[in-house]
């Protein structure tokens, strides 16, 4: 075939340009470590990459939500543990009052101890969660859930005005506070504290009244049984919180595993295999050098150099 000079020069130039382009692409793959740089590089890979990024982003958010859940559940556990402590103290006071060896003034001081415990219980009922909301208020957690209605309820006989006079009022609700832990999954992080604490408070009221009245039979009978029932209820609630804390940990482990898997899959889709990329780079480099050498030799060859004069 007849080769014209124009075509010859064009071919050299095009070959060099093509090799240079491949060389630059191979170099970019090695330097960036990425296989997917623009949408055209791999449209199917793009879909996979975007889907996996979306899944990973959600999983990371669920992990953050679990942090919230953990801190709220932790606060619940601590508060319930304190409530249990208050009830246990009250139980022991009632037990000492009921065994009949103590006299009237002792019973009065015991009643004041119970009153202190009641005030402590009320405080615990109004504990705030780390999120800044009241723990035992259900969803209505912006306002103090427990308060005393001083207009009614048992007033101490004998005229000694105790600071805890009045009946307990619960203004929260019993709706669960939810945390999203996965697609379609939500975990309640609240304890239905309204009935639990109100009932315990009223039972302490009974103990205090019976101490003041010297009704030792009720004190040693129903009162002890009922306070024991409240303590059991608190323990049940704590167990439920504990099992939910465990769920949070398990869920977090699962999510972390999922995030790790997705990160690995993403890197498979988006990133180059470095050893392969370096190999390609070497091949491209050699091809580029060859194209340059051939062009340099070819440009030099001309009949003109062989014609004398």
């Amino acid at each position, binding site marked *: 075939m007849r080769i014209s000079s124009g075509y010859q020069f064009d071919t050299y130039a095009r070959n060099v340009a093509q090799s240079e382009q491949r060389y630059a692409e191979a170099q970019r793959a090695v330097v960036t470590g990425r296989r997917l740089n623009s949408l*055209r590089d791999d449209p199917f890979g793009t879909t996979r990459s*975007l889907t996996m990024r979306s899944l990973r982003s959600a999983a990371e958010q669920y992990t953050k*939500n679990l942090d919230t859940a953990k801190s709220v559940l932790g606060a619940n556990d601590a508060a319930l543990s304190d409530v249990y402590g208050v009830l246990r103290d009250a139980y022991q006071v009632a037990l000492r009052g009921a065994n009949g060896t103590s006299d009237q003034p002792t019973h009065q001081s015991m009643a004041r101890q119970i009153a202190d415990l009641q005030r402590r219980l009320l405080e615990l009922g109004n504990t705030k969660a780390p*999120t800044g909301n009241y723990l035992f208020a259900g969803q209505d957690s912006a306002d103090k859930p427990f308060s005393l209605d001083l207009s009614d309820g048992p007033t101490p006989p004998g005229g000694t005005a105790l600071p805890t006079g009045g009946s307990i009022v619960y203004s929260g609700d019993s709706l669960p506070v939810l945390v999203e832990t996965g697609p379609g999954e939500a975990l309640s992080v609240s304890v239905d504290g309204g009935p639990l604490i109100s009932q315990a408070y009223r039972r302490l009221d009974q103990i205090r009244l019976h101490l003041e009245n010297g009704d030792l039979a009720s004190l040693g009978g129903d009162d002890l049984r009922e306070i024991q029932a409240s303590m059991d209820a608190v323990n049940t609630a704590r167990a439920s919180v504990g099992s939910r804390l465990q769920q949070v940990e398990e869920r977090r482990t699962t999510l972390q595993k999922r995030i790790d898997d997705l990160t690995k899959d993403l890197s498979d889709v988006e990133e180059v295999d470095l050893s392969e990329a370096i190999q390609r780079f070497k091949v491209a480099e050699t091809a580029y050098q060859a194209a340059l050498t051939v062009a340099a030799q070819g440009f030099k060859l001309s009949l003109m150099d062989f014609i004398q004069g």
Partner: protein
Amino acid sequence: MPSAFHGIDIAARALRSFQRGLDVTGHNIANVNTPGYSRQAVDFKPTDPLTLYLGGSHALGTGVTVGSVNRIRDAFLEGRRSAVMGDLGRMDTLSSQLSRVEGVFTDLQGSGISQALNAFFDAWSGLASNPSNIAMRFQVQTAGRSLALQIRSAYLALQSQKQEISGQIQQTFGTIDQLSSEISRLNAEIRSQTALGATPNDLLDRRDLAIQKLSEQIGIVTYRFEDGTVQVYSGQFTLVDSLQSHPIPRTFDPSTNQLSSGTQVVDVRTGALRGYFDSYNKLTGYQEQLDTLADTLRSEVNAIHATGVTQENPPRTGLLFFNDTPNGAIDFDLSAEVQASQEAIATGTTGKAGDGGIALELSRLRDRGLPALGGWTFSGYYANLAAEIGRDVRHASNEADSFRAVLDQIDLQRQSISGVSLDDEMANMLRFQRSYQAAARMLSVFNQMTEDLIDMFR
């Protein structure tokens, strides 16, 4: 009986002819870099013989003359090249336009609509899990604003590119008209020179080049006539007839790929012009998908959000999250209320601090396949759009590459026939130089002979 100076005549004609040969070689070398130039070759032919009676009749040669100067060219290759140029022009234009679209969608760099969608639903999930938290609420507002901005600015980038394409279509019309009138002008010159019996090689080359350039802009067919002129048609429209060129209709409709002027309609099938139409249509398609995405976000998010009650005092209900009117991606933004204050974001149906029901429902939209999106989730729908753009770019650039490869093949053949080879021309130069030297030597021999003859009588 030939004259005594017959030999001198032969030598003189040879000198003249070889000098013309050398001239043509020089012309070829001078045009080695001229686009569209076809190498020329001198066709030598013997002059008419004399009849010599010398014991019978003999034909006596009288030397050489230049028969013609020919353009070495293959008309079939020209036609094929013109067709491929049309396809290449179309795909090249489409590919370069779509490459720019690719730059608008930066999801693989971690900053596109897909990331904004993720952040948006993540923020709702966070708020659902901590409904009274001011920072979370702020995050939802920010994520919503950024999502709306991403979709809107992608739409606007496509819009301004479409306007630019329209401008380029107008420019292409200008180029087409300019080339048509150049072809028409060359037609007239070629016709007058052909009428005088000459072959205007260089004018033919220039006209061929103009036809090639024209076919890159719009698909054409050409017909050659006896008088040397060509007529150029695109579809049913006559761009150049034997007398004049006609301006191409300026009214265009990319959706039908047609140009029109009055009742006349031109189908545009190939060339850069078709590439611009294709790009325009592709961009419109992407815009429609962004519209669908924005409108579905509006309807789905607003429907849920409007049932919520804010935690403000007094609480408000029935608020929209995204603005409702007008429709489409172009004005997509937060609603005026949510824009004004993050407190207008409802997390639940009761307005209570711990009620994250609405936020939870909105967070769960993330995984819901929606009929308005063909059963896809928001992220899935968008990922499909991104993949579609990727596929379109890839397809167009692959097609362009393969047409370029075909064009290279044709060019190789064309250059092989028509291209100037400097080595060839060097050889020709030597040949004509040597021939000239030989003819000159011959002349001096005849001269010597004539001198000897005259000296005889001295």
